[in-house]
């Protein structure tokens, strides 16, 4: 026990005096989570919140434009700017990326809409064949919707549907007005005023299917904090593997191997220290999400109330990362090789694991590959607790996979050391 303590103490001293390693383990992940969250917040907001820039060109100056603008504002999904521009100018501004959507309401649209609605309603009340067959305005009434080419098809469809819905409402209002007018014509003096209840008869209720009572909406903070925590934990493979190779190169490992049973304590000291580092990284990153990011107007990280489960995930992820670092340090022949291989491999695992781009937006075959990354196991476990309110039993498969990864890495390092380096 004393040997383990002194081994841990030695590793601690070596680490805290290594400024580069401290920066890699604590400063870099904080900077990354801060920057990426701020950058990605715009993307998340463009889908979730009121920030889609919309250009409205109103050449109608009548009810349709008024009601369309009011209805769009009510959705709180758009920042609406009204401008008097030609179609070419609108096209130019949208293609430049200044607006995501442009809507052009042609001249006299409201009047033509009313006329068309009136003609349809009138036909219902006219019995004369000649009038029944009278020509009506069949020229189509069009609203021009222009989209930035980067707009995703699904988003375009949802905007078109929303605008169609608003136009249908305006159409319905026009027809009801015409109906009132016609009824007054048929029954002169009668107090006829058909009221149209625009409320939908069938409504849909939307909610997130979570196991907890709180409903957390995924946002850039809820994604990035756990994602970059996992990344930071696995990035300890660089200082850890460097530490192992340095000991091998300067003869310390040789000396330690000549001491009775000591190398086991040295390795245990390393595992213990880097586990503690992982836990510190975890708390540090959570603190950034909870306290620092809200200071710049971002939402606060919601961690739920399964603290024990969170600690279990952090411990198992820390062990997996430490095991990986030990394996890299054992196999690599030089510090350069370990730093390059470790960094590239962790970046690949992070990309696959959904650190940059969440797995739910990945194509199906990539989701299958993503499930092979240990960073994905940790991330999914954190999502489970943060967003879905899952307890320890629910995330146990992810935790077990991380522990199995640690075991495989340690086994690989042991066999490589014994059957390759010492033969």
């Amino acid at each position, binding site marked *: 026990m*004393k040997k383990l303590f*002194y*081994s841990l*103490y*030695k590793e601690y001293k*070596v680490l805290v005096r290594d400024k580069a390693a401290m920066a890699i383990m604590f400063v870099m992940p904080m900077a990354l989570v801060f920057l990426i969250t701020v950058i990605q917040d715009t993307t998340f907001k463009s889908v979730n919140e009121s920030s889609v820039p919309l250009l409205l060109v109103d050449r109608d100056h009548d009810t349709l434009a008024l009601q369309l603008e009011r209805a769009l504002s009510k959705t709180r999904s758009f920042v609406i700017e009204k401008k008097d521009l030609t179609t070419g100018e609108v096209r130019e501004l949208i293609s430049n990326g200044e607006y995501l959507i442009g809507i052009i309401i042609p001249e006299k649209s409201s009047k033509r809409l009313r006329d068309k609605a009136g003609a349809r309603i009138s036909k219902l009340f006219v019995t004369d064949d000649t009038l029944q067959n009278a020509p009506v305005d069949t020229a189509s009434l069009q609203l021009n919707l222009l989209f930035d080419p980067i707009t995703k098809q699904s988003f375009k469809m949802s905007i078109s549907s929303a605008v169609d819905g608003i136009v249908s409402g305006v159409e319905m209002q026009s027809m009801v007005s015409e109906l009132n007018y016609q009824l007054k014509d048929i029954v002169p003096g009668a107090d006829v005023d058909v009221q149209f209840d625009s409320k939908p008869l069938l409504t849909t209720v939307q909610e997130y299917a979570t196991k907890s009572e709180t409903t957390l909406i995924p946002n850039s903070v809820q994604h990035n904090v756990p994602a970059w925590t996992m990344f930071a934990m696995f990035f300890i493979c660089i200082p850890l593997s460097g530490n192992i190779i340095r000991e091998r190169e300067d003869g310390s490992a040789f000396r330690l191997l000549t*001491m009775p049973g000591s190398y086991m304590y040295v390795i245990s000291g390393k595992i213990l220290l880097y586990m503690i580092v992982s836990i510190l990284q975890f708390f540090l990153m959570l603190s950034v999400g909870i306290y620092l990011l809200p200071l710049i107007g971002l939402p606060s990280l919601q961690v739920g109330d399964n603290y024990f489960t969170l600690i279990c995930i952090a411990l198992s992820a820390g062990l997996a990362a430490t095991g990986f670092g030990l394996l890299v340090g054992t196999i690599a022949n030089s510090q350069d090789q370990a730093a390059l291989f470790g960094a590239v491999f962790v970046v690949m695992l992070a990309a696959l694991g959904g650190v940059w781009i969440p797995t739910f937006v990945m194509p199906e075959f990539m989701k299958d590959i993503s499930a092979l990354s240990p960073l994905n196991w940790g991330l999914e476990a954190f999502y489970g607790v943060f967003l879905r309110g899952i307890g320890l039993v629910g995330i146990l498969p992810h935790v077990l996979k991380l522990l199995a990864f640690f075991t495989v890495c340690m086994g690989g390092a042991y066999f490589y050391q014994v059957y390759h380096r010492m*033969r």
Partner: protein
Amino acid sequence: MQQMMIEIIDVVKHYQNASRAAVNHLSLNIPQQSVFGLLGPNGAGKTTLISMLCGLFSPTSGKIIANGWDIAVDPNKIKQIIGVVPQEIALYPKLTAYENLLFLGHMYGIETKELKERINHNLEILGLLSNKDQQIKNFSGGMKRRINLIAGLLHHPRLLILDEPTVGVDIQSKTAILEYLKRLNKEQGMTIFYTSHHLDEAEDFCTDIAILDEGKLITKGETKQLIQENGCRNIEEVYLKITGRKFRD
């Protein structure tokens, strides 16, 4: 009859994928309380033999007995009685001299109070007590070598293995190191197994010498006897006479 600290019996070590054996049917006895010098050109098999003596590698064939124990069977028993001073400065540059020695002493299982006394005693003898709280990275080559030596002595080993302990040091540090080692050999009866390319130093320091070349034992004997038998003036002449002038690397 003279007691042997180490008996090397027909040892062969052949690394995986190597074209020839690093140590080739070597038999050698190292007497207790001797200062035994193992000399040889680069690639002679000295480091491989040291690794086997420390219990890190097993011989491909043959047997090594140290203090009566078979190294292949009881490597941990051997590790209890040996001290190793590697050719490299096997210390942590960012730790102070004292922190390095405290860590290594604890790894040998020495009690803290006793360990601190031993550290201070050794630092004082080798003139480093006033530098004990400086980080190793700020030490000169000679100071590093002296700390490297102390790290191998803290647990009072009965067999001290030194792999080129005076490489790159000034004459003052070299003298301090060798005089201290001679004192330990005389006063504590410590057996010293030493390798070096400094042949004049080896001649002055060692009671017995063996010369290896390409994994094979070329000659062995008491230092003075070897010089006389070969009709040479010193060990360097013996060495060149036996191993020739051909480059080995």
